């Protein structure tokens, strides 16, 4: 690193510390190229512009001159959104002109922001452009996933000691997916007869249906992806029902690939709390919750999947009496008790 760059960086860090939340109005869309002098203050790359103007306020307050360009060259390495070039056309330079589209594509593929905006970047952008944060409506009876995002509780076969959540017909789970420490996946074993699974994430989500033991063979049966706050429906073929290894895996991704960064966990691990000096994790481009609901073509009380509520179902319920097994917990209370028995008897026949 050159002496000048060291000095620039040191100054910039100090400046950032003193005015970390400064918002420079001329930064962003409509401003000039960060790497070319222009008469107006500010430049098009918001992150780069703010960094430079923290170092030299005149770059935003007056003109973006040679000093500002030099500062940008030194300080803005790796910042490529937005950059000249349409997000929908391949071009030689990294990044593209729509900041949010550009950011989203680079979440999937750093090459797009580090080297060049090629055909694959365009394909990724087409899937993500125009999407923004949204919030799902969580039903009152939704069951929490039961995993803090700093934990690894239901990562299925990816765990040294495999473990899963479970999902039965009539139940809705509300979960959270993140990408750090390490990337989270949420695995749910399907319990009982299920005809359809509905998946609604707040992020670009992927739902993978697999079956098989961890040692193998693990067979990928189906993959579906969906946009934030848009519901995807995954039919469960009849021939798969009853397989005790049938598993749903939730994570972030699009048809063009997986999301593996930028969805930081926002819960604090009490055993490993962050230092007070640590900056808070950056906000993700989308929220992190999802809903996963299972529906059966049979009555909810049909526990053995024969579409008749009878003695066999009663036996299953009684065998699990007092437990939290989702198979039999018909009202989703977390315990199999008299209320579940009442529901079963009400659906008899």
């Amino acid at each position, binding site marked *: 690193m050159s002496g000048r760059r060291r000095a620039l960086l040191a100054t910039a860090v100090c400046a950032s510390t003193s005015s970390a939340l400064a918002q420079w109005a001329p930064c962003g869309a409509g401003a000039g190229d960060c790497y070319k002098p222009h008469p107006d203050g500010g430049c098009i790359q918001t992150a780069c512009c703010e960094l430079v103007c923290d170092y030299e306020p005149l770059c935003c307050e007056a003109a973006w001159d040679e000093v500002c360009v030099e500062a940008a060259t030194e300080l803005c390495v790796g910042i490529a959104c937005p950059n000249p070039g349409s997000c929908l056309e391949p071009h030689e330079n990294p990044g593209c002109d729509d900041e949010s589209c550009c950011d989203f594509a680079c979440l999937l*593929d750093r*090459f797009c922001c*580090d*080297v*060049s905006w*090629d*055909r*694959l970047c365009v394909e990724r952008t087409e899937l993500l452009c125009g999407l923004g944060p949204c919030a799902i409506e969580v039903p009152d009876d939704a069951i929490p996933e039961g995993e803090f995002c700093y934990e*690894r509780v239901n*990562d*299925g*076969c*990816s765990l*040294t000691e495999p473990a899963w959540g479970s999902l039965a017909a009539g139940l809705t789970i509300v979960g959270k997916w993140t990408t750090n*420490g*390490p*990337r*989270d*996946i949420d695995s749910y074993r399907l319990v009982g007869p299920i005809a359809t699974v509905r998946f609604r994430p707040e992020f670009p989500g*992927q739902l*993978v249906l*697999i079956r*098989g033991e*961890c*040692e*193998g*063979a*693990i*067979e*990928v*049966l*189906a*993959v579906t992806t969906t946009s934030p706050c848009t519901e995807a429906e995954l039919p469960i073929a009849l021939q798969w029902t009853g397989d005790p290894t049938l598993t749903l*895996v939730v*994570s972030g*991704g699009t*048809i*063009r*690939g*997986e999301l*593996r960064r930028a969805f930081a966990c926002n819960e604090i691990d009490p055993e490993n709390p962050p230092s007070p000096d640590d900056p808070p994790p950056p906000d993700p481009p989308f929220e992190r919750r999802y809903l996963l609901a299972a529906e059966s073509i049979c009555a909810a009380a049909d526990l053995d999947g024969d579409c008749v509520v009878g003695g066999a179902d009663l036996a299953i319920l009684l065998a699990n009496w007092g437990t939290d097994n989702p198979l039999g917990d018909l009202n989703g209370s977390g315990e199999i008790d008299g209320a579940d028995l009442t529901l079963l008897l009400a659906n008899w026949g």
Partner: protein
Amino acid sequence: MFRRPPTPVATLSSVLLAAAPAAGQIAFEPPVSIPLPTPHVPSSLHLADLDGDQRLDLVVTGRSTDGLLYILRGAEDGSFLPPEAIELGFPTDAAASGDFNGDGHVDLVLVARTQIGRLIELPGLAGGGFGTPELVTIEREPRSLCLADFDGDGAVELAATNYGSNSITTAEIGPEGIQPFDHLTIGREAVAMCFPQETHAGDLDGDGVPELVVPAIGNGRLQIMRFAAGSLAVPNPTGIRTPAVGDQHAALTTAGLFDLDGDGDLDAITPAILLGQSQVIVIYRNDGSGNLLDRSLVETSFIGFAWCATAADFDGDGRVDLVAGMALPGMIVVRRNESTDLPGGDLVYGFPMPIFEGSFIRDLAIGDLDGDGDPDLVAVDISSHTVHVFRNRSGEGGLAGLEDPVTAGGKRSLSASPAADRDAGRGPLVDRNLDGLLDARDVAIELADWMPPAAPAAKEGSR
């Protein structure tokens, strides 16, 4: 963690020391070593008769920035002539051949291991030369390809692994050139990055349609894909994990398909890395229906890391023997098939027989180079930029085995940690597949990306 227990490799080597082979023993002539121009960084081998002279020629792909491909024409004595360079402009990682355009000459197809991944078709010309390369972009960092009639239309198609995109590409290849057909991201069901390294095609289940077999070094599974009849759409995979050994699963690296037990179906092998234990080849025996869950381990060496493996009946006894190429250091170890109850019975292998010690054996190839009817062995060392040719002399006298460096007293000191055997100056093991664990799979990924210390980085961010 890295301490290794003694294994038969160490105890047997003195028996094998430079002895003339007895009947039923595998032996090779001392290797003919052919240095390649530097910095080629040779990455794979492909044997084919490119010029129609009935001798096998050798294609050596390479990862250096010079973007050269080397072809070594077959020589009369079963070795090769000096390398001829073909300028492609891209680092390459795998090659295959065939008359794709139907003009009667052998063409080559290669993968360019760059972030803007490409398939490269080199049209063959009369006399064995090649015309202007044609390029088709695919996904990130393709590393391997294979050819087969996946859709049953009577013509070969192409499948390639895109290491950087965790995906598989299929493509038509014919008189109209290369036309990509489908891409599929694989490994979505696991925390770990998938990193598909190689690809092989073979009809595992005997239905006449070849399956695609891909060792995914990031998630440690052999991925098998069964194509739907008449379709070139990449099918969802089925993954088989390597067997557990103690508290770890072996980390697979590359793969191969062979009928090891003589029962008429294809079995799979993957060389695999274990930390603190002998390196192994994992054998996946086929039950005839394409089920490869019958897995077992065959030890190779307790120094270095298992990187590549192949198989052939070297001694002509009708049983398929195994050979493994190691990394850092680069032993080549042969395991003779001594099974007595084939087909179908247990697979039994003789003691590991080290025949060579290099630095990093990046690939092995088998072919009858000297026309004597038995399989010869070719190896390439990525670190020393050298091709080594081992002509098979089983039953005819020759070099049977090398002294094991561990027991040879002073030839080479073995460090307590295989990590220390890697090139000096590299940092500690890092979580390369982002699964939150530091294990053998991270070592496998490190080896997959490994470059000799002096080699320059390849273009376009290729690693």
